[in-house]
């Protein structure tokens, strides 16, 4: 049988068997509705509140500060739209970074049509937001700043604590009330994430990026934050997110948090070593290859490259035919036929972004899988360069 190697953990992760086991009873046995008064309902309610404590614990929050959602996308929509409409009496200005996930960018773009003013902060070559520009952009009308914790394409970690300080100082000076939100979908469960240490008022997390089930996310909302819900109805989740609660999913998310809490330290070290081997290997074995991002200040599991003279979708499919799953920021792979906004924001030219490849490692990645990837990649790139009119500008 052909080997199958999954190196796309930043896209999604498989559910950990321990998580699956924990979820098991909540489908057909403990199936109650958390809003029901009888024992079925109360059993589900207890599981929900215990899960909330566990998720809150991993982020250093109080349980009543955690609102479960259906996804990180929903949590990000909730944060932006909920804060915008709850605080429009104080101002209409929102700041985001230029490399946010599409669910932040598109929410901000939509808010623009509703009369809000949006500022997008640029990043440097490593993908770190320009702190000076951010500082200068804050004004009296600024009600929200949203900067992701780590980027999903290049893995660069943002200086969230510094940004928090800048926002506090500036908003104090200007007598503004500026909330700070971070999208931690890529970092939560992989590196230590503490809302107090980071100094954020809102934070988005996701279950399926950390070996929990799909269909579950959460938004941390600091006590006292003025926000309105997206979903109105029966008043679930402290009135902030009506909808029958996805108990099995949330129980799974909590189990994933418990496992991460215990294993995160060693796992991050292990992945960091593997990533170093991967990056060194690619750059030394493939001529005309380039690393994108920040080697020092980044997630231990995401590496991004671009290759001269070849297009990313072709690399992905050729690797897929060899049993290896990775992804690309090339225009040809997107429905919109546009190159990754993240890579362009980092200063890559369109044809450089078209040749990009993201390799992301995870809990089940073995060293021999990296070895196999490094063994086959040079040949794949070489084959595609034979077809291409651009052979690359490197010494061969």
């Amino acid at each position, binding site marked *: 049988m052909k080997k199958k190697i999954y190196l796309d953990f930043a896209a999604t992760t498989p559910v950990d068997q321990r998580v699956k086991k924990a979820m098991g009873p909540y489908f057909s046995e403990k199936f109650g509705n958390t809003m029901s008064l009888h024992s079925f309902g109360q059993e589900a309610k207890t599981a929900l509140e215990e899960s909330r404590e566990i998720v809150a614990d991993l982020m250093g929050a109080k349980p009543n500060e955690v609102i479960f959602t259906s996804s990180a996308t929903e949590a990000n929509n909730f944060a932006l739209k909920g804060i915008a409409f709850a605080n429009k009496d104080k101002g209409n200005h929102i700041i985001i970074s230029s490399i946010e996930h599409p669910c932040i960018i598109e929410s901000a773009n939509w808010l623009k049509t509703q009369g809000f003013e949006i500022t997008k902060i640029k990043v440097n070559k490593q993908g770190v937001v320009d702190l000076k520009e951010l500082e200068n952009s804050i004004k009296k009308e600024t009600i929200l700043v949203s900067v992701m914790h780590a980027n999903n394409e290049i893995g660069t970690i943002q200086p969230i604590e510094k940004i928090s300080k800048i926002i506090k100082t500036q908003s104090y000076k200007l007598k503004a009330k500026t909330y700070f939100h971070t999208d931690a979908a890529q970092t939560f469960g992989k590196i230590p994430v503490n809302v107090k240490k980071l100094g954020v008022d809102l934070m988005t997390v996701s279950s399926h990026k950390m070996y929990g089930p799909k269909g579950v996310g959460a938004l941390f909302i600091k006590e006292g934050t003025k926000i309105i819900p997206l979903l109105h109805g029966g008043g679930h989740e402290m009135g902030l997110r009506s909808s029958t609660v996805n108990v099995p999913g949330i129980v799974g998310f909590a189990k994933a948090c418990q496992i991460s809490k215990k294993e995160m330290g060693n796992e991050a070290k292990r992945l960091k070593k593997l990533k170093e081997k991967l990056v060194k290997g690619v750059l030394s074995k493939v001529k005309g290859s380039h690393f994108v991002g920040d080697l020092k200040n980044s997630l231990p599991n995401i590496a991004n490259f671009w290759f001269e003279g070849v297009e990313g979708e*072709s690399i992905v499919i*050729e690797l897929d*035919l060899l049993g290896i799953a990775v992804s690309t920021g090339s225009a*040809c792979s997107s429905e919109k*036929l546009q190159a990754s906004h993240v890579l362009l924001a980092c200063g890559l030219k369109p*044809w450089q972004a078209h040749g990009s490849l993201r390799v992301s490692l995870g809990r089940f990645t073995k060293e021999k899988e990296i070895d196999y990837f490094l063994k086959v990649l040079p040949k794949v790139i070489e084959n595609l360069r*034979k*077809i291409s*009119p*651009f052979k690359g500008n490197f010494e061969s």
Partner: protein
Amino acid sequence: MKKIGLYTKKVLEHFKNPHNMGKIKNPDGVGKVGNIVCGDEMWLYIKVKKDKGKEIISDIKFETYGCVAAIATSSIITDLAKGKTIEEALKIDKKEIVEALEGLPPVKLHCSVLATDALYEAIYDYLKKKKRKIPENLEKIHQRIEKERKIIEEKYKEWIKFEESIKENKKAEG
């Protein structure tokens, strides 16, 4: 239609083992279409021989930078055009390419246009070099391709200008 994921088996066959890949030395016509800024560029070379008063595409080769669909359409068009007369080759359309590949995903249909454009441009180049009359239809196609090329170049120039203005602002600030 057999599909493996996004693409048909036929597309993947051509992608894995493209036919007529490479350059022709001293070609009689060259067609260069697409743009690396957009993510795909196709170069097509033809050699034309006269046989019993007919002009036949005796050899055809391609070089392509692009996605799986761009490479597969390049490969299939060389198969379709090889051995055909100039008149016959000008009748090859995108529909024929898509059918020969047993289908393309909707978002990739433009790659079939790129392939026919490359062939038409190579024939245009050949006729031009021979100082021959260009058929009206081919002239129209050539004008459209030129126009599209200019639009992309303009767009790209604006993009470069925008980039430079950012750099200058930075310098001014710093």
